[in-house]
């Protein structure tokens, strides 16, 4: 199964892509998916993850999903 990965702001610079697709299983956690894609990238405590447009837990299985996004600290307004 394919999952679209999106990056924004500094995570885009750090990972070097804005969008890509990866193979995943619904039992994978966001952290595991990201580690396979970018073993050296650590989201730390400030980068959140969103699954299908909702904030999600880095360590809970993604389930059946189409889009995972890295959300660095937001600064709109």
């Amino acid at each position, binding site marked *: 199964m394919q999952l679209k990965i999106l990056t924004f702001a500094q995570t885009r610079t750090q990972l070097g892509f804005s969008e890509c697709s990866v193979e995943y299983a619904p039992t994978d956690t966001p952290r595991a998916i990201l580690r396979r894609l970018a073993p050296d990238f650590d989201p730390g405590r400030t980068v959140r993850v969103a699954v299908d*447009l909702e*904030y999600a837990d880095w360590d809970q299985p993604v389930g059946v999903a189409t889009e995972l*996004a890295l959300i660095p600290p*937001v*600064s*709109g*307004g």
Partner: protein
Amino acid sequence: METHIEFTRSRIVPSETPLPHREVGAQVDFLGIVRELENGAAIPGLHYDAYETMARLQLGKILTELATAHPCVAVWFVHRLGFVPVGEASLFVRALARHRREALEMTTLLVERLKAEVPIWKLPPA
């Protein structure tokens, strides 16, 4: 509550909107404006980017939540994306309500929640 969420790459120009009905007693407009000094250095402007599909969804949920405690007649939310020069608005919020407190609280809290939760970023000048 009528809501309108918009992202635009053009200059934001708040216009007079017709009141949806004759029981509107307060209108609050908020403009967030790009300032010249960013961390002490003069900049020509800021770039804004958004995860637009998620931002729309989250803003809709925030508005629904806020409407429970601060019911308004209508709320407009407009965020500019791309380059925004110093002195121009990156954000426009308009709240219409029967009473001033709802409109002022809605505006204040919507901007607070925006800044904490909604996936929009100002990008450092290149």
